[in-house]
């Protein structure tokens, strides 16, 4: 089947997007800070009437048109808008690709008849876009190159056999050549596509690089050109709208259950698991209430997730009633098929559920596990990692006896290398009964650690007559005694 491509060009995409949201009745332009000054990024036809152009500095433009209204531009939002348009364009054909920053390619091969032919299809596109407040230029041809040339330079339809006739008279820029190449060719007296076509191919290839010939061949269909459709982003969101508002907890939970069942079925087919869920309730007074659920492990088990949602949902204020519930899996992760094992799996699941429940109260980053660190410095020998994103450490390295509780060193009075016989600590006077040591620990010179500024440490395990067992250290390089831990 003969390929048929529509090129859709939005010459004023950015300005019109801005005006759609916030119309202005004045010469209007969008500005972008570029090359050390505010410049015009995009503008409306009225502003163009004053002689303004894209790329002009704003100061310059204002001297032409003092009544010019401007807004800062947002190229990223424009790009998002173009993607939305691409999604909209799939109403005409399943194969839609982006073309630069302001255009779309629609591969309507075999789908034009659905709207009654090519002409009615283009009319329909144009009518809908005009209604949406967008200017669009349309070109239809057998190749993306030719369609692009038509949409940018001579709107219309090129029948399969008249491509050269339609694009022949167009300037060289219609071939998507770079500005530099165009100027260069124009200097040689070649101004149109047909003039280029009539030149011997070998001379062009010798004089310029292959790109000139490639673009020409692509336009004429001698070389194929790919249109890359947008990646079909999987959207894990479901919603339910209700004919009458609901407000009872049981009803809301029943609605949530239905959504969860749908969502989990979808996650199941995609082999994914949800990590962060957002449940939004729209009330009849248009107020939105949302409940977030952070999960300790990716999962797609509707019943378990429902139980975890219970606490959040019960805190929702239903007001005059809820008429829409939307559930979205905001964060998803890969979750393959899992072998079911009877006891261990259930235990793991219940622990993950517990982490989720606790995490929803105190924050998932506050549920931690110990992980060993390879360091001989006592306070640096372990770290705390979030339990939701780590697995328990099976084997813990065994080192010398260490206190059960470590705290920042607290100075005590004492001198000499032997532990003091009596000392005061935390308001109590203690008498040393037994002391074991010293264990010398040297600072890690390759690390910058302020608390080790005193240098070497000689650690002693000191048992007091009062019953405490403390971890004392002496700093011989900088004499002083400190308490750093309690054995309990």
């Amino acid at each position, binding site marked *: 089947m003969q390929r048929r491509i529509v090129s859709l060009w939005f010459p004023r995409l950015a300005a019109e997007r801005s005006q759609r949201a916030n119309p202005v009745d004045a010469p209007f332009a969008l500005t972008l800070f570029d090359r050390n000054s505010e410049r015009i990024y995009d503008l409306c036809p009225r502003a163009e009437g004053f002689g303004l152009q894209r790329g002009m500095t704003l100061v310059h433009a204002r001297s032409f048109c003092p009544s010019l209204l401007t807004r800062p531009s947002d190229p990223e939002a424009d790009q998002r808008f173009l993607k939305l348009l691409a999604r909209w364009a799939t109403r005409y054909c399943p194969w839609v690709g982006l073309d630069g920053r302001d255009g779309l390619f629609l591969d309507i091969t075999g789908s034009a008849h659905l709207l009654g032919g090519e002409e009615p299809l283009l009319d329909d596109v144009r009518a809908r876009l005009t209604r949406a407040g967008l200017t669009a230029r349309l070109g239809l041809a057998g190749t993306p190159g030719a369609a692009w040339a038509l949409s940018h330079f001579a709107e219309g339809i090129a029948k399969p056999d008249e491509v050269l006739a339609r694009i022949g008279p167009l300037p060289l820029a219609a071939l998507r050549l770079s500005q530099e190449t165009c100027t260069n060719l124009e200097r040689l007296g070649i101004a149109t596509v047909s003039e280029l076509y009539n030149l011997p191919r070998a001379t062009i290839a010798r004089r310029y690089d292959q790109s000139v010939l490639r673009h020409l061949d692509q336009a004429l269909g001698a070389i194929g050109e790919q249109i890359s459709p947008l990646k079909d982003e999987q959207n894990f969101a479901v919603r339910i709208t209700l004919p009458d508002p609901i407000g009872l907890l049981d009803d809301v939970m029943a609605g949530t259950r239905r959504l969860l069942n749908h969502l989990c079925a979808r996650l199941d087919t995609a082999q994914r698991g949800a990590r962060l869920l957002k449940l939004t309730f729209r009330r009849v007074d248009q107020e939105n209430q949302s409940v977030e659920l952070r999960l300790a492990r990716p999962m797609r088990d509707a019943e378990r997730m429902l139980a975890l949602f219970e606490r959040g949902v019960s805190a929702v204020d239903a007001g005059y009633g809820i008429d829409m519930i939307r559930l979205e899996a905001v964060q998803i992760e890969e979750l393959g098929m899992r072998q079911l094992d009877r006891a261990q799996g259930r235990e793991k699941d219940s622990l993950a559920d517990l982490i989720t429940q606790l995490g929803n109260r105190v924050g998932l980053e*506050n549920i931690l596990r110990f992980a060993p660190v390879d360091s001989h410095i006592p306070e640096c020998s372990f770290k705390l990692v979030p*339990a939701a994103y780590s697995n328990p450490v099976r084997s813990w390295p065994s080192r010398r006896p260490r206190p059960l509780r470590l705290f920042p060193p607290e100075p005590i009075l004492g001198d000499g290398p032997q532990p003091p016989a009596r000392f005061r600590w935390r308001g109590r006077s203690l008498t040393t009964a037994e002391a074991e040591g010293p264990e010398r620990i040297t600072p890690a010179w390759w690390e910058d650690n302020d608390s080790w500024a005193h240098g070497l440490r000689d650690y002693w395990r000191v048992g007091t007559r009062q019953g405490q067992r403390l971890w004392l250290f002496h700093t011989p390089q900088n004499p002083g005694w400190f308490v750093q831990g309690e054995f309990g």
Partner: protein
Amino acid sequence: MQVGIENEDKAQLLSGTFRNVIFESSSRETSAKPVFRALPADRKYKVGFSVVMLRLSSFHLSLIRRSMSLPFSSVYPLKRSRAHEVCGEGGLVFAAISAGQAKGAVVWVSEHWRPTVNPEGLSPYCDPGKLLITRAVSQLDVLASAETALRSGAAGLVVVEVSGAIGLTEGRRLQLAAEAGRTTGLLIIPEGAGSNAAETRWRCDGLSASHSPCQNSHDSTHWRWSLIKNKIGTLSEWVVRWDAASHRVIVVSKAGG
């Protein structure tokens, strides 16, 4: 000693068959009169217990303690599905040992400003990988997290470090949650801050070398574990040590006995 007796049969009490003998003495008078009053074994008397408790001095308590032999194994390991409390210097060790003996994960809830337990110090008693540290902002959050953890039943033991007093309501809630989730709870409390709802309360103190019964105890330290509240039995105290090889608590002697 006053014993309130609701019975007309006082004559028999004075004349009759005595079996359970209670010594009477005050702590000041050290010369105890041997037999004062007794209760007939075959008759049921309703005793005004509160009166008795008020008049009991510490000396009486120690006498009662000595007279009853409460086996350590009946109160430790801690009774499951209940919330227990521990206070004193050695409370952390008590919790660490209990954590090591619990099956499954151990949830350790504390306020965020409190330094966490040192996993290297914990490793002789308990595998640090078992621990799930939960750090809450306030005591309210600590108690609520503890209740959630106890109720879920996913953990073997829930250790809660509290900094303030616990009311009867909170204690009872934890108790009910422990029963519902069939999980053991252990609260590390400051001295005197416990709630009446606790199943048992322990006070743990380190014993210095000179007080230890074994003089050659270079390898292990001793603690005095006193049971200072027990809902379903009597009180007692023991001197225990940790045996690293067999990984269990060994009772060295009954304290004071």
